[in-house]
């Protein structure tokens, strides 16, 4: 039976990146469709009526929404290659906990750093660095958050690496100085074809964010 896999996405979305990485890790052939969020496609509105957001994975006509839920679905559906979640229930729960931590902290934390200025930005920066340090602590001396193997938590976090340059430029700090092990981990992940293909160029992303900021400030 022909398998139809469509991903509704936008190139700068860290959430979309997670799904792209997971699909590529599994060697799934998919149709990547770039959405214009100011003019959402009828397909997007039909497949995610509750949130009307990307990413949405459409597998043989059935939609799955919410990036981490999509990653779990991908892992459960394409089982032969690159398992992303541990089979041991406790390790599985630990992976869930840390992906949940990433979800709670990284997007909103990074956004605060990007959008605030002066004293408020200093506070946001400190908090963001603190979260990165917690993650670095959890990583420890392991190659990946998944242990010896690239896994679910790695997928959940690596997209935010593409945003580091923009945040560093905006708030005047260096993630490599604050969290060298975490940056080493990120570079390790970037060696994987699935990741290198799925993350945008950090300079292109910075430029895009600057353009958006200009538009929003008008």
């Amino acid at each position, binding site marked *: 039976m022909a398998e139809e896999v469509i991903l509704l996405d936008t190139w700068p979305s860290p959430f979309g990146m997670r799904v792209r990485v997971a699909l590529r890790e599994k060697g799934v052939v998919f149709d990547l469709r770039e959405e214009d969020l100011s003019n959402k496609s009828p397909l997007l509105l039909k497949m995610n009526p509750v949130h009307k957001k990307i990413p949405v994975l459409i597998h043989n006509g059935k939609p*799955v929404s919410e990036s981490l839920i999509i990653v779990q679905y991908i892992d459960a559906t394409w089982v032969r290659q690159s398992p992303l979640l541990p089979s041991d229930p406790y390790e599985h729960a630990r992976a869930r906990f840390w992906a949940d931590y990433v979800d709670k902290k990284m997007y909103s934390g990074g956004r605060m750093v990007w959008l605030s200025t002066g004293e408020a930005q200093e506070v946001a920066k400190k908090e963001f660095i603190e979260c990165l340090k917690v993650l670095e602590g959890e990583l420890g001396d392991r190659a990946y958050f998944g242990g010896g193997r690239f896994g679910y938590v790695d997928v959940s976090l690596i997209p935010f690496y593409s945003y580091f340059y923009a945040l560093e430029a905006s708030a005047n700090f260096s993630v490599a100085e604050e969290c060298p092990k975490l940056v080493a981990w990120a570079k390790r992940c970037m060696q994987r074809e699935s990741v290198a293909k799925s993350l945008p160029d950090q300079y292109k992303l910075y430029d895009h964010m600057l353009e958006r900021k200009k538009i929003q400030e008008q």
Partner: protein
Amino acid sequence: MDGVKLHGVWASPFSTRVIWALKLKGIPFDYVEEDLSNKSASLLRYNPVHKKIPVLVHGGRPVCESMVIVEYLEEAWPQFPLLPSDPHERAVARFWVKFIEDKSLNVWIAGRSAGEEQEKPMRDSSEMLAILEEHGPNKGKKFFGGDSINIVDIAFGGVAYWMRVIEEVSGGKMFDAAKLPRLNAWMANFESSPVIAKNLPDRGKLRDYFVPVRAKILSSSTSK
């Protein structure tokens, strides 16, 4: 089998959700009531990241975050399944759990605020309910899980029951039964079902617990 211990607070919707999952699955466990003003050394050791309850300890290893715990219980104890076996249906169930988790923050915020500050969280909570009413997977069914309670029922049960306490304590209306006939019916089904009915904290006691908690939060925020 290694022992199971749950660190919780009787008045917490989050630890109650875990109790529901444990009881539905028939998993024996010990319960430790935590005093949040004086957290035990164990709690801080088991959950150093968030320092919150509930924490489930199984064979000495901690699992934190109520819905992460429920997923863990589902994997480690397959009886009374709380998730469908089909991957797409699982994804749909998880979608609604996430929706409830993300949107119900407004309910707790409404409980902690007053006057003008309370208006938006109240509105957003009502919007969450409207979306669940319209799109929720319980359409034409007894529970979100169909004939039996599943993970979505557990997630929402924690919110729905406490929402009415918060309404009483904070004097606002989020749940309009007339506008939410399906959810209203669901609530009656859920709260009267055997295991849940026996594990619902008393409404009056919850109210008595939250009145001073709310007063303290409001007074400390105005004295800034």
